[in-house]
């Protein structure tokens, strides 16, 4: 915990120097969203109905896109190996990775949500629900994608495998997030769904970092 600062500084500096790592997923998110009106037709009411699912699926895919490169460079140039070999706890490194991942892929999606709401003709109550689900959901997406990246870091064909591993784990989140947005669009209360999402987030926050550190250790040994 003491050493979180230097790790976080390093991650953020890396992100500032390799802008493609976090810009590409964000651009991908917007492009996928703009494909849907072209694919299903620009009918505003139809767009409002499909918006919850579309936004969340685009978010899942863009986070997945960023996940693949998460540990790759650090693994190739030996940083992960040195950290496992050193007596420093790996947990600080993992937490810094998580935080940096959320700041670079989750937070932009939250900040972009007003634009998305305009593009897909989402009304105000649904927009607030969308903002809340994204705020609660994107950290969980980061947690799961860090886990997937750590599991597959030394695998030969990491990319497609990563999708196969973490997309099933995303499904409960997807269900509750779109249920909350759907309830909001019908002016129903959606505290229940948000509470479940928060519970999932806290549960994952407690357990995933431990799983990530042991996955990294297995991949190095």
């Amino acid at each position, binding site marked *: 915990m003491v050493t979180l600062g230097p790790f976080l500084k390093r991650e953020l500096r890396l992100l500032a120097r390799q802008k493609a790592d976090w810009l590409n997923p964000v651009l991908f998110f917007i492009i996928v969203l703009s494909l849907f009106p072209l694919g299903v037709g620009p009918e505003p009411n139809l767009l409002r109905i499909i918006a919850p699912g579309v936004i969340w699926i685009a978010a899942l895919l863009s986070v997945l896109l960023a996940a693949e490169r998460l540990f790759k460079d650090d693994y190739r140039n030996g940083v992960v190996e040195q950290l496992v070999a050193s007596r420093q706890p790996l947990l600080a490194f993992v937490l810094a990775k998580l935080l940096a991942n959320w700041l670079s892929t989750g937070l932009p999606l939250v900040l972009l949500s007003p634009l998305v709401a305009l593009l897909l003709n989402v009304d105000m109550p649904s927009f607030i629900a969308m903002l809340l689900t994204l705020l609660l959901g994107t950290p969980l997406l980061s947690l799961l994608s860090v*886990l997937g990246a750590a*599991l*597959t870091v*030394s*695998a*030969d*064909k*990491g990319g497609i*495998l990563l999708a*196969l*591993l973490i*997309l*099933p*784990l995303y*499904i*409960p989140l997807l*269900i509750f997030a779109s249920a909350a947005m759907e309830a909001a669009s019908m002016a129903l209360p959606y505290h229940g769904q948000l509470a479940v999402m928060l519970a999932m987030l806290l549960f994952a926050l407690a357990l995933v970092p431990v*799983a990530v550190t*042991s*996955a990294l250790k*297995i*991949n190095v*040994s």
Partner: protein
Amino acid sequence: MFKWLHPYAKPETVYHLCGRLMPWLMGAALLLLLLGNIWGLAFTPPDYQQGDSYRIIHLHVPSAIMSMGTYSAMAIAAFIALVWQVKVVQWSVLAIAPIGAVYTAIALITGMAWGKPMWGTWWVWDARLTSELILLFLYLGVIALSGAFSDRQTGAKVASLLAVVGVINLPIIHFSVEWWNTLHQGASITKFAKPSIDPSMLWPLLISILAFKILMLALLCVRLRTAILVNEQHRPWVKALAGD
């Protein structure tokens, strides 16, 4: 207990143990499977509402129960493999995964075949159906992950870790019928209450469930023996075995 378990950490002992158990388990499984299924499919009375098509529960329910049972067995094995680093247990995780995947696939396919005449549709995005589908993906993920590494042992360890993480799905499947009130019916057999199914239908069903359980163990023996041989192929005892 550890003193008693200790010899079974040695691959050679497990290989011979599986070899001895396998014919008995396989025989019992086939016998019970034939008994349960012929009784259930041919000799039970038809349901007053569903007619004859309910008979598919004699395949569907046992395979659905065992799709989750096999997963918990795999997850427990994976946990043991990660904590105590027992090689035989590690191989057994990979030996169990395909069996469970096939059980899950059988449960899904028979469920679809039953859903067509009863619900009028092959598939609905109902909570239990969806989570069972996720279970299938988890099995496939474990299998794919174990094969993705050039080092076989790393693959086995990483797949074990994924199996432990995926346990989160089991309570979701089990309680999905109670949490979300959806199309799939609730459980007909419980330990605590009087079953909501007639005894004449219950007995063949219980026999089929038992048969599927024993069949899982028998298949595990077969697959574990093969895994031990593959992983220990350069050991003297395997060479001596092959030399005979």
